[in-house]
């Protein structure tokens, strides 16, 4: 039951609650199955799904704050990154760039999704909004990966992008479909 916001302090408190709960949702979906694929040092996770979904549902501001809270949980040492890793060291590792990239990605996707949701048939537009976040994630993620592993661009792309493009596109599309469904199911969700 969302209540009518009564004072400024109350709505700030409620915003904090939303940010915290969706940060926890990103954790829950990350820990859900961190699946291993073929031959890449980077795991497939539901993070991209969770981050895209959160940004679409909460908008750029609260969405990015939720991502930031998730990154803070990792930073203080809680084992909530893929593979149950945690601590600041995770950011210095090969996949740290992906984690950082979720922040600009959430801002972009959240902003685009806001426009998509004003359309009468938002789903295709939401999918586009989600897909727009992928290059952001790959650019920062792969750059970081190259810096940490010292790998050349070619093999780095083969390790850090190629295996994921299709699955990520599917995850992003699913996030869009879930968002469209959830917004219809609970019209009060995105104020």
């Amino acid at each position, binding site marked *: 039951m969302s209540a009518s916001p009564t004072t400024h302090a109350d709505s700030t408190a409620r915003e904090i609650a939303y940010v915290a709960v969706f940060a926890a949702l990103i954790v829950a979906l990350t820990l859900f199955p961190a699946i291993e694929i073929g031959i890449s040092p980077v795991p497939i996770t539901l993070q991209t799904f969770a981050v895209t979904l959160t940004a679409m549902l909460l908008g750029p501001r609260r969405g990015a704050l939720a991502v930031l809270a998730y990154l803070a949980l990792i930073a203080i040492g809680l084992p909530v990154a893929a593979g149950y890793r945690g601590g600041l060291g995770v950011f210095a590792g090969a996949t740290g760039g992906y984690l950082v990239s979720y922040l600009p990605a959430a801002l972009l996707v959240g902003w685009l999704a806001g426009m998509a949701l004003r359309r009468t048939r938002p789903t295709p537009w939401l999918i586009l909004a989600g897909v727009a976040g992928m290059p952001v994630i790959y650019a920062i993620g792969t750059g970081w990966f190259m810096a940490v592993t010292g790998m050349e661009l070619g093999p780095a792309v083969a390790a850090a992008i190629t295996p994921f493009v299709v699955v990520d596109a599917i995850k992003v599309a699913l996030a869009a479909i879930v968002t469209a*469904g*959830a917004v*219809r*199911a*609970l*019209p009060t969700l995105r104020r």
Partner: protein
Amino acid sequence: MTIRFEDVHLEHAGRPVLRGISADLTEHRIGIIGENGSGKSSLARTINHLHAPSRGRVVVDGVVAAQDPKGVRRKVGFLFPDAAAQIVMPTVREDLDFSLRGLGLSRDERAARVEASMAEQGLSAHADHPCHLLSSGQQQQLALAAVLLREPDVVVADEPTTLLDLRNLRAARRRFAELRQQLVLVTHHLELLEDVDRVLLVADGRIAADGEPAEVVARYRRMMA
């Protein structure tokens, strides 16, 4: 219809939760009671293999749950304590239609069955309403309608009447009493047990009493005194 528990054991996070449950449920309506944390929900969830026993097995009408989870889930409809947890689609009509997926029905056939179900449950006026704006009583009704649409042989209901007012409680009770399916009802609403044929009392993962509703309920009251 027989639900058979054969020495069912279950652990959650390494802690034993069910410690050897054996019983044959053949009656039309069976109640399950017991204290908080005794294992009632866990037991109910082994029936359609939402939990996998660590030892022993559950057999529903000859189908071993662990061997054919999809098969038992076709036979067993399940109602969760929080109806909102099992409503998956945005509107009432879509959610009911969702139940008919994968059964090989034609579009028209599905639409017809959904209409009939809404009419029967008095939900027609809400067909295109967002499910989560319905009242708790209506959500509960929708959850039951969605389960019945798949024509199960057994309905397992885990505390389906929390938060209902007197009228909705009575309506729910009537709906359960009229069910032609076999019913397994987990509940803290002891007055609902007046309608059942047999009651199991679960205590600390074991069956502590099993038999006539009035007797078992009296035993439970003494235990809780």
